[in-house]
């Protein structure tokens, strides 16, 4: 446990030293602040615009942080072989991967918290704070944890460039997967229909957990949807990490 925490702590410290992190954070905060001026252009819809822009900023910049910093840190470790130095101690490979994941997840959590604080503060100033906004931020965080797990997963067996591409692809696919059941319904029964069903089952569906639209329009978010989506995405993340540990267990570190 101490070894996992040591790796997590070192990873978090390294993430926090990344300059790109502050650049992204600055952009996100600027965007959230700017959304206020956008409200001047429209009448009556001001709160919605701030919420919409703010949640999107957290989503996009959170994703970029997970990609650049998450994949970047693992990239550096593999490329410069510091991973070998770490793994020459009595740490197990799964402990190392788990520590990396936890450190990155902690960094993402801090970033989301800072961005969310800015957004919630702005909305609260206008007296338009709703619980559903908080829930939407929580669901964005869950999704970013999933993306972080995907970054660790792809990094455990492929080269860094591919890991970054695959991780980005996982995000896109995750948000398009919802279309597969619709496609499946229109297909005649048969092998292809079964295949489409199977593919949908295997792919992560991130759209189900995306409750931004509901939060923006102030619609209460059903708790069962939040619970199901959280368990689903974190469960999927746990599965990815487990497979990553298995793949990394016997990998030659040359």
């Amino acid at each position, binding site marked *: 446990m101490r070894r996992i925490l040591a790796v997590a702590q070192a990873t978090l410290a*390294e993430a926090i030293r990344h300059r790109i992190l502050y650049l992204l954070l600055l952009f996100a905060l600027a965007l959230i602040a700017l959304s206020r001026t956008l409200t001047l252009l429209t009448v009556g819809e001001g709160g919605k615009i701030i919420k919409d822009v703010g949640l999107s900023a957290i989503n996009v910049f959170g994703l970029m942080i997970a990609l650049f910093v998450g994949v970047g840190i693992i990239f550096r470790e593999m490329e410069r072989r510091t991973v070998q130095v770490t793994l020459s101690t009595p740490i197990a490979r799964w402990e190392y991967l788990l520590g990396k994941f936890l450190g990155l997840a902690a960094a993402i959590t801090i970033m989301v918290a800072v961005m969310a604080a800015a957004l919630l503060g702005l909305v609260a100033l206008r007296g338009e704070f709703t619980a559903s906004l908080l829930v939407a931020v929580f669901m964005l965080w869950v999704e970013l944890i999933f993306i972080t797990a995907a970054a660790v997963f792809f990094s455990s067996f492929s080269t860094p460039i591919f890991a970054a591409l695959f991780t980005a692809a996982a995000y896109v696919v995750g948000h398009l997967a919802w279309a597969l059941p619709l496609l499946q319904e229109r297909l005649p029964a048969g092998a292809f229909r079964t295949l489409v069903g199977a593919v949908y089952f295997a792919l992560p569906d991130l759209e189900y957990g995306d409750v931004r639209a509901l939060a923006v329009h102030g619609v209460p978010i059903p708790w069962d949807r939040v619970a199901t989506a959280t368990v689903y995405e974190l469960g999927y993340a746990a599965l990815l990490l487990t497979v990553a540990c298995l793949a990394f267990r016997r990998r030659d*570190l040359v």
Partner: protein
Amino acid sequence: MDGPAPLVYRGVSKNYQTHFWQRPFTSLDGFSLEVRPGEILGLLGPNGAGKTTAIKLALGLIFPDAGSVTLNGLPAADPAARRATGYLPESPYFPDDLTGLELVQFAGRLHGVPERELRARAAELLEQVGLGAAAGRKLRKYSKGMVQRAGMARALVARPRFVILDEPMSGLDPVGRREFRDLILSLRERGATVLFSSHVLTDAEMLCDRVAILKDGRLRALERVGELFASRRVRGWEVEARGGGAVAGAELVSERGEERLWRFPAAMQAEEIFAAVRAAGAHPVMLTPQRETLEDLFLRTLADEPAAGRDGAAA
């Protein structure tokens, strides 16, 4: 000193697949070696001989294609096998955002050194390798030799009973080499076992109890250095003589005024040599046998066998 062998290789082969369309490259081929407790064993060989490959196998960083590697009585793949083992990588690269102190402390945590002892121990080790003043500076600002020293402090943080050093002397100045030599000897005095790789023979000659010579992934020789010195073959004689003319059967090595140095073949006896010198009208002053050095052994070993049975040599 007895006890179980810290490291045992049994018929270990390792192939690297560089590209999937190429035949794998054999870096280690049927390699067997047992490191004995308490000894300093030098793993020698030219660049590309397989030294680093052997060391990475011991640490479970890579896995053998054939044979087995046992570290401290456990399979090398088992993390617990590395508990009492320190490692200094070849031309190490450490996260350069860390200070020397943080580097050593991080390794200490992974080795399970209690937190309350860790800081003092790390500082003490850095002091010992001559980085006392630089302990708080970032590794980015270290010279190559300083990184090497920090790596040595890192390797020793768990008070290891077995220390594996991959080319420990590289990047060090003569003073640093001397200090590292003393440090390695002090490890043995403490009862630790040391395995180090090198392509520099003088280091090995001064330090090692035994040397293993590798070439093209195969073990070519395994010798006790002490015995090497005791029973080293005579490869010739040198005679210092004063005056006289050319000496029959000898080769003139150097000449300073009246004093000349002559070299005779190993097959000649001392009496024959003196007779030959006197016959030339010279006075013999000193006769010294020219013994084989580790370098001679090394070069002879490498010249002996051609690299046979090795596939993918073109890779």
